[in-house]
């Protein structure tokens, strides 16, 4: 996608700038931007390392397994068809907990494992099952409890209230997840497995 967008952005800007006599601004605009990118990366370093370090400790504790138990009621609501599949159940739970704790590096491999397990029981190997769709939706919903990366970046940009976005993020995340889950539940109800498959 960006292989298409990026050159379009550049070509259009350069032609437009030269045609409207803004070659000078364009020149400094591009090179200032590149310098900005490097400066920012250096300021990101400290806070990003801090949060990744703290979250690594979480990964080593039994906190993850405790949280798995905590989310069990949600699991039953989200994946009613996976009841008999203990392994898929556990892998999905771990993936969700990793997402909630903001452990992106741990969540993706766990999620891939869960998909592989669910694929074993999938009668149509080239098509997503209802449970898989719900699982992917949960992963696109960004259930992160603390948006550490965004906070880290806000801090390095000199925000006086870098953590002030936590509550807004919670509200927006819950709203998005709720809408997504309800839409998926509705779609499963209407066009789910065993029904006349329009999708």
């Amino acid at each position, binding site marked *: 996608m*960006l292989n298409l967008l990026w050159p379009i952005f550049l070509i259009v800007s350069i032609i437009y700038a030269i045609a409207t006599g803004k070659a000078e601004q364009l020149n400094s605009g591009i090179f200032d931007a590149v310098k900005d990118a490097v400066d920012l990366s250096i300021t990101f370093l400290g806070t990003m*390392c801090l949060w990744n370090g*703290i979250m690594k400790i979480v990964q080593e504790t039994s906190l993850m397994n405790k949280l798995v138990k905590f989310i069990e009621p949600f699991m039953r609501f989200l994946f009613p068809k996976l009841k008999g599949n203990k392994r898929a159940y556990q892998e999905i739970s771990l993936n969700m907990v990793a997402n909630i704790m903001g452990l992106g590096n741990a969540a993706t491999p766990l999620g891939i494992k869960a998909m592989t397990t669910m694929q074993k029981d999938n009668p149509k190997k*080239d098509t997503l099952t209802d449970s898989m769709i719900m699982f*992917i939706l949960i992963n696109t919903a960004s259930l992160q409890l603390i948006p550490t990366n965004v906070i880290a970046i806000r801090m390095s940009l000199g925000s006086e209230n870098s953590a002030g976005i936590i509550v807004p993020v919670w*509200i927006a995340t819950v709203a998005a997840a709720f809408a997504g889950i309800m839409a998926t539940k509705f*779609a499963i109800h209407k066009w789910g497995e065993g029904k006349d498959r329009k999708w």
Partner: protein
Amino acid sequence: MVNYISNAAMPIIILLIVGYGLKEKIKVYDTFLDGAKEGLEMVFRLLPTLIGIFMAIGALRSSGILDLIVKIISPICIFFDLPSQIMPLALIRPISGSASMAVAVDIMQEFGVDSTIGMIASTIMGSTETTLYTIAVYTGCVGIKKIRFALATALIADFVGMLTSIIICKIL
């Protein structure tokens, strides 16, 4: 009050995590360093994207094209009472994680981190995911081609998340 809760949440969580690690007799400092190293790698991985996207945005902005586009879409945004400056982020967010982070950083620098626009950009980044990438990874890893309504429902969630981000930041 909302600010205080937000501010207290982070130190309390650090306290809980480190305390819990100690209770389970984990070498917390060594583990911390391991994680910090991962953070370092993340920033290094982000740098090329940051340069690429900043370069493109720099060109779009300094040429005056960005102003032109914002001007064109602003009547629609005004009609729905949406800030048009946030639109580039909203459009790129589902497509690319690092590119949208670069766009968000650019918005925060341009309009101020703590301005309403800056807060909206941060909230969108924190509450949504790179939907297309996530779907691609999870279907690709098991060789699935037919995704049924997965994209539609995920985009509904993104849309609601972005709209809520805008509304909530305007209220607070």
